[in-house]
């Protein structure tokens, strides 16, 4: 499939990849929805159908849940064992790593926000990976700080510690909503501009320029900063079709480092909220007099979490990349659709924030009882 990239087979190959990805996404989604549909069905299903349905509903979701419960329980046992046998710490790190991988497959941990952020922006796979790792490790640091200060230094009760977690949680959800609203503003303007003058974008060449500019990520912003005339010319159109960071409201936003700063905002909104699992492990380790082992386990967990989140981030970046490539050479309407997707993803980020804030959607519940 990869050998005939310049022929009509190229398009065929793209489609195939696309369909594979769609299938993968659907399987993931269907598994969750199927399980929910079964729980929702007010009359249940027929006796005969039930057993077959049950087997499927178990599927990936139940397996993930079973695995993470297994690793979670093994962690407390291993921390206990580490008290008398130091070598158990190595086992603990391994368990924590796998717990991170499986645990992060559930909701929360910033997968949805980071994926949406990546779709909304013209991001590269490299930045997707960087954002995923940065947010996972920031989550670990925040968990260590919360437990280190409140439990180790101040020895406050779980109730007080939980209050802190809640405050941090609300801050995180608020920031997600604000980030989403900001993205909506920026992307909305891009969308409006393409809708307003679709004729200007009808040329395939310009669409291609936009696509390749996007591929180069922040380096293109750097070029722009140096003000090469030719590039500037391209970027005016790029701006018009609303690609990448380049249609930020103020010219300063076009520069590369600024783009990274925007990425850091996304990392902060997600990373500020620690994982309840890490907090529990840290407090447990502290109670056993092995706080350092808890810290090591938290970082191992973050590594696992980062890998899972990266998987989702790369899927998001590839889906967006495919969409962009398909859109290139198809003129104004395709570009408008692309801007529409970006605006939609921005809206999703905002909605996640609002839904989490209002408690309609629970990513994770802070253990406050």
């Amino acid at each position, binding site marked *: 499939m990869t050998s005939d990239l310049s022929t009509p087979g190229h398009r065929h190959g793209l489609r195939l990849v696309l369909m594979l990805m769609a299938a993968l996404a659907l399987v993931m989604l269907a598994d969750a*929805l199927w*399980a929910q549909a079964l729980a929702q069905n007010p009359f249940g299903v027929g006796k005969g159908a039930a057993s077959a349905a*049950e087997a499927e*509903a*178990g599927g990936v979701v139940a397996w993930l849940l079973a695995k993470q419960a297994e690793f979670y329980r093994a962690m407390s046992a291993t921390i206990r064992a580490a008290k008398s046998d130091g070598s158990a710490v190595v086992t603990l790190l391994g368990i924590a790593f796998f717990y991170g991988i499986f645990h992060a497959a559930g909701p929360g941990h910033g997968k949805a926000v980071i994926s949406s952020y990546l779709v909304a922006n013209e991001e590269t796979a490299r930045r997707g990976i960087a954002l995923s790792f940065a947010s996972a490790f920031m989550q670990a640091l925040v968990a260590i700080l919360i437990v280190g200060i409140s439990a180790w230094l101040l020895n406050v009760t779980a109730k007080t510690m939980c209050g802190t977690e809640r405050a941090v949680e609300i801050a995180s959800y608020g920031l997600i909503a604000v980030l989403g609203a900001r993205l909506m503003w920026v992307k909305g303007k891009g969308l409006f501009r393409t809708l307003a003058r679709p004729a200007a974008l009808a040329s395939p060449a310009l669409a291609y320029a936009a696509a390749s500019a996007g591929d180069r990520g922040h380096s293109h912003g750097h070029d722009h900063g140096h003000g090469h005339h030719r590039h500037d010319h391209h970027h005016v159109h790029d701006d018009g079709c609303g690609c990448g960071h380049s249609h930020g409201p103020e010219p300063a936003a076009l520069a590369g480092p600024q783009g990274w700063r925007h990425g850091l905002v996304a990392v902060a909104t997600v990373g500020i909220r620690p994982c309840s699992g890490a907090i529990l492990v840290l407090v447990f380790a*502290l109670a056993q007099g092995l706080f350092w082992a808890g810290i090591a386990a938290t970082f191992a967990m973050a590594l696992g979490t980062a890998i899972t989140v990266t998987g989702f981030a790369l899927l998001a970046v590839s*889906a967006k990349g495919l969409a962009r490539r398909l859109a290139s050479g198809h003129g104004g309407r395709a570009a408008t659709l692309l801007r529409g997707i970006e605006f939609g993803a921005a809206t999703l980020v905002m909605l996640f924030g609002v839904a989490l804030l209002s408690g309609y959607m629970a990513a994770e519940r802070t253990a406050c*009882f």
Partner: protein
Amino acid sequence: MTTPMLRSWLRAFAIAAALVAGTGAASAHPHVWVTSHSEVIYAADGTVTGVRHSWAFDEMFSTYALQGIETKQKGVYSRDDLKALAQTNVESLKEYAFFTFANADGRKQRFQEPVDYYLEYKDSVLVLHFTLPFKAPFKAKKLALEVFDPSYFVDFTLANDEPVKLVGAPASCQLAIERPKSGTPSAQQPISEDSFLSDAFANYGAMFANKITVGCS
């Protein structure tokens, strides 16, 4: 744009949408594990008056909950030391309807505030004891009781040894217990589904519900 192109394009959009939606909407996961013992309490005239639970938390959560609690003797927690924590527990549980859902002959039954609540620390875990009196005691041919967290933050497992007892029940009453299959969500309809949280994501935990039924002729 040609029609097949538009179609594949829409497919790309579907992927992006499924990605973000799927990541957000997938299953919740528990951070707290509870092993439960429950008693259904009957009055002398055969009416059901309430439910008494004793819930053992997992070791990790127990340690977390005990963080910062002052005791006279290190590592020994008396009922008195844990009084404030037990108070917090039952107050917080109210928000979650005590994770207990009752239905008598098709009618949802409500609980009063919990009474006789206390915590004990046993075998390095916390056990919460509390009684939930029904608002209006009732007689029922079929009482269905479920213990579960609809958002599945707490995983409830019925204890292996006599997880449910009938206290003072008429001789004609029969107890039946249905556990969720190990790790596999049950496909059965949750009894509280219509009356409790009805939105799709909040009721995810219903698949892991423990169903207790008492039939009296």
